[in-house]
């Protein structure tokens, strides 16, 4: 690319001119101007898109989930695909040095912002990083970001911290007037995150979202509709004893499964390279892809939660 630039200069074409031509050409071909320019700019500067990954009221579970990618391996993503400027759990720098990188990157703009963990609404001081309130850090980093991804249930809708005294909320409540892509589930599914990032870097667009900001491609259908145990539900066979091998595959509704009220592709995509997922290890779906998680899903292991009551009401009406 460098040689190509030099060649252009010989003809008196500046980099800026060239980008402009490309944009016009792209527009005439019906491609996204923005995208072509951006991608060319990356190519010309041999730069990888900068990524800021913030952790607030988090447990690092989404980070760990993301690093569980094996194909493509996470190392290739970190070293070849993105330029990870700031990530507390991974980066070499610490203290002021780390903070400087963060502020430089945020000020310059053009970065993808990934947020893990909620923001405490009760009081800023429940979460401080580098001597600053996490809320302020999120606001500062969102300002010039080209995409904002709330990764995991906490960053999307508050998750478990929502129901604690610190009253954690999602990024969408803090960042106003910008699209926030929500990728709930606790933790985030690594495919959901990688797919969303790559989709954005490839098209320059946000994937199609549902009314609560989740990509439809991942959160379009209920877990129940794609569950292997669906036939047992239809036949009225429900698991009551985990020791009985004959019941092993029975429906878990009576054990508190929230599958009918949870939209996510877990049942098809599965987790950990397709090895397993919650329902297949005999545990009920907890509905962690929903804004009502966790309190509307509690109690988890019996069918007495608000959500379970709704599920049973639908079942009575023959709607499931």
């Amino acid at each position: 690319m460098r040689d190509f630039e030099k060649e252009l200069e010989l003809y008196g074409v500046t980099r800026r001119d060239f980008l402009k031509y490309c944009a016009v050409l792209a527009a005439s071909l019906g491609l996204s101007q923005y995208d072509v320019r951006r991608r060319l700019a990356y190519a010309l500067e041999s730069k990888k898109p900068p990524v800021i990954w913030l952790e607030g009221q988090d447990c690092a579970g989404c980070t760990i989930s993301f690093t569980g990618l094996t194909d493509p391996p996470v190392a290739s993503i970190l070293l070849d695909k993105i330029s990870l400027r700031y990530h507390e759990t991974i980066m070499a720098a610490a203290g002021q040095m780390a903070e400087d990188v963060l502020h430089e990157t945020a000020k310059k703009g053009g970065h993808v912002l990934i947020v893990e963990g909620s923001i405490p609404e009760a009081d800023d001081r429940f979460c401080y990083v580098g001597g600053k309130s996490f809320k302020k850090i999120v606001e500062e980093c969102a300002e010039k970001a080209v995409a904002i991804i709330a990764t995991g249930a906490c960053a999307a809708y508050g998750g478990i911290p929502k129901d604690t005294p610190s009253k954690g909320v999602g990024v969408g409540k803090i960042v106003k007037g910008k699209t926030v892509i929500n990728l709930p589930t606790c933790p985030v599914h690594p495919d959901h995150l990688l797919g969303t990032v790559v989709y954005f870097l490839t098209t320059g667009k946000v994937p199609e979202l549902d009314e609560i900001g989740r990509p439809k491609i991942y959160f379009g259908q209920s877990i129940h509709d794609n569950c292997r145990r669906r036939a047992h539900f239809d036949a009225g066979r429900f698991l009551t004893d985990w020791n009985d091998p004959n019941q092993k595959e029975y429906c878990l509704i009576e054990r508190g499964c929230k599958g009918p009220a949870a939209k996510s592709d877990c049942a098809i995509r599965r987790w950990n390279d397709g090895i397993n997922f919650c329902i297949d290890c005999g545990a009920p779906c907890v509905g962690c892809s929903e804004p009502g998680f966790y309190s509307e899903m509690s109690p988890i292991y019996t069918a007495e939660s608000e959500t379970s009551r709704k599920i049973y009401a639908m079942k009575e009406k023959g709607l499931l």
Partner: protein
Amino acid sequence: MGQKIKIDPVTRIEGHMAIEVEIEGGKVKEAISSGTMARGFEALLIGRDPRDASYVTSRFCGVCFSVHQLCSARAQDMAFGAKVPWGGELIRNLVMGAEYIYDHPLHFYQLSALDFIDIMAVANYKGKDKDLLAVKEKILHLVKVKDTYPFTPRYKPDEYCVRDPDIVIHAIKHYIDALKMHAKARNMGAIWGGRTPHYMNIIVGGVTSYPDVNQVLRFRSMLDEQKKFIEEVYIPDVIAFAEGPLFPLAKAGVGGGHRNYLACGDFPLDPERKKLVFPGGVIVNFDPKNFKVLPFDQAKITESVKAAWYKERDPVHPYDGEQVFHLEKKGAYTFIKAPRYDGMAFEVGPLARMLIAKNKKVFDFINKGAKPGVVLRHYARAIETKLIVDACYNWLDQLLVEMTKPGFKIHDTDHFEPPKEGMGYGFLEAPRGMLGHWIRIKDKKIQNYQAVVPSTWNISPRDEKGIRGQCEQALIGVPVPDPKNPINVVRVIRSFDPCIACAVHIVNGNFSLERFIIA
């Protein structure tokens, strides 16, 4: 009056932590560690169905993800009067084994190694190994395009940093390999755990995952691959660093601290639960030539809130613990409480476990001149990983026999309903050290819930008597020749593998909090 420096955030640990140290004459004179994030899990649990606790507390932390789930299930087992069948216990052990196998190498490579190597030394690699040349090329390319994040920026490499191009390039390659291995180790846990992080199969009374033979075989074959990596890459790397370039650090005992060690003991190898992988015990003021291992008694644990942002009260046993916030409290500087055993501060974790077990390999290294501290901590962590690998084979063999017996059980279904009233505690040797959960149940709901986690022991603040927590104590006397480059400080902190999200307990309150800053 020395010079004060503050490192905030301390990175490559789990959670949000700040450290302030005062340096005088090139050494740390005073240290203050502070947990800077809180959520308030225990308060959330009060009034809930007790069985929710194992799911919710798992979310204390996503790095050591399922330790709380298991510990909570054990506390409920006691409170519900549930007896976990041996089949259920074996599966609990195996998924926890997978957790160890993923967690320990991750700590060494991803969270610590960058403090011990000069990554730029790869440029001088002169060998012909194709894989290593690819690593060299990758790093040099990143340098060329001025994009070496997240490896830079960093503290300046000091005299303990390895500069030998061969060792460094191997370390970087292993850093990349380890990423792949730990993803695979977690897939291994997911065979019964459902998925990771945050297993789904551990509940009061046992597990939900009824096993089949193929799962046992699959787990074993994945374990074979992990064993190879641990025995041929991870352990040799740690030993090569510890007995080679880092030996001066080991000999100086940098980051030793109080030298008090605590372990509850864990992971039964037989149905009678008599033989354990890690024995429990207590060592006070460790001296390798002359030390006693005393029995551990949970009744001797208290938690102090003296230096934490909670309402003032005398130290109490966790059964009676509470979290009432008081953020204008004078002298408080952290969200972490100070647990004490018999009134003393202790270290928990791999080093504590291996000293209490009188592990031969660790004591051989001590006899060579290594003293408790940063290096011995890494050493003990590597050595115990192998013990867990061996135990996993043993458990797999037993599971295969057990599950083919008639009437095989994984769960105590008769005790799945919460009792009207009850109390119980559960202990667990988590990768980072001893963990305890205490639960009180009233009217079938949680009345009180407390967790005292490994990092609360290790990263605790001062108590009533002014006794520092173990990490604070470990920092005293640590050499910092250049205050702008406090690399030894972060080495000491990271050697504990802190998990701050776990360590913080919190509750409600309206407060105005002045950030604790030293001018």
